[in-house]
């Protein structure tokens, strides 16, 4: 059996996941990251995307969509923490709401002027909601 390490997915509103896992795949801002046990201490920014965590039994995968955040791997036992702005398990996603949010984000992009923080925010929101919709469709 593969070596495990503790993974936590935390948002300001709740602790979404706190488990022993064998592997985590996370959307780093510089590209996808695959994390196995004994990874070196790391701190990185996360882009909106999907987090896949293979739990200790080696079969179950926890499938989470995050809107971006940070990932920290602590020195020592390799305790890994994902600090997400918002995160939800794929089976929790309400697809009608995700689609409505996506439409709202597109509208926001159309309304915002070039180079403002609103525009950056809107792009981010579109990316996040596209992933939510896609992930939720793939699930059902």
């Amino acid at each position, binding site marked *: 059996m593969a070596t495990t390490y503790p993974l*936590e997915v*935390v*948002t*300001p*509103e*709740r*602790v979404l996941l706190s488990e022993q896992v064998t592997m985590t795949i996370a959307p*780093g*801002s*510089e590209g996808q990251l695959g994390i196995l046990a004994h990874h*070196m*201490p*790391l*701190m*990185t*920014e996360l882009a909106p995307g999907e987090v896949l965590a293979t739990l200790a039994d080696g079969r179950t995968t926890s499938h989470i969509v995050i809107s971006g955040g*940070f990932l*920290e791997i*602590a*020195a020592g036992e390799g305790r890994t*923490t994902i*600090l997400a*702005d*918002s995160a939800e398990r794929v089976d929790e996603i309400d697809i009608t709401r995700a689609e409505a949010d996506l439409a709202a984000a597109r509208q926001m992009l159309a309304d915002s002027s070039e180079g403002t923080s609103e525009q950056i925010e809107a792009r981010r929101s579109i990316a996040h909601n596209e992933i939510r919709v896609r992930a939720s469709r793939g699930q059902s």
Partner: protein
Amino acid sequence: MATPRQIRGRIRVAKNIQQITKAMKMVAAARLRRAQEAVGAARPYAKKMRDVMASLGGATGGVQHPLLRRAEGEPRAIGILLITGDRGLCGAYNSSVIRKANDLVKSFGPERTKLVCVGKKGATFFRRRGFDVVAEHPVPATGISFAEAQALAKTGRDLFAAGEIDVLYLVYTRFLSALSQRPQELQILPIDPPETENGAVAGPTAEYLFEPDPEEILASLLPRYVDTQVYQAVVESVASEHGARMTSMSAATDNAGTMISKLTLTLNRARQAAITKEIAEIVGGAEALK
């Protein structure tokens, strides 16, 4: 002396009030429980955030960022992010946090103060006194989402980044327990990076791998750090408000109870007096006929 009829009316009023305060107390108790859960749920993230900031702070000593800008000398203008409730009937909850904010702005006055208010009570108070309330947000009983808190914090951050204010204070009510809440002020901008546990800068941070690099991570982490503090403050204030309301409504219910028993006593006395008077009249009448 009031007539029995009048006293009965007053008892009825007191009973009605007691029913309302009792209902409000129960509603507040139920909401308090949920708000307390939210406070508990927000803690791990806030703690993690501080840890990460502390380890980053070590790796990026002396980095420049707009949110770290310190005004030279005395601050020219201050900003206050004030968190109150929308409604009264919750004891001293609103007034004590407003007093705290009022103390802070005293030396600056309306021209050199900008306010961002959560809750109608604070906004009304300062608007009436001619202060500039830049933004106002209501407080739904269920609390607010992180995204909403983020939007509020952003208003404050933008003011600071634009140089309109030199310091931003957060004035809120800290939730200690259901029975005790304390108004609190906290300077959130410019950011004072939290110290590592032992105050040392070196240590494990030196071994961290940063992607893309410490400065960039810090630049996106700093605003988030402020947002987290604001969210935490709102969550705690909401819990405090429900706690304060529960306590004061419980006291009101007790007072109404005392009032009712006092009035009942007066009523019985008045009733007896009337009976005695009637008997005396009958006896007096019978005597006269003899």
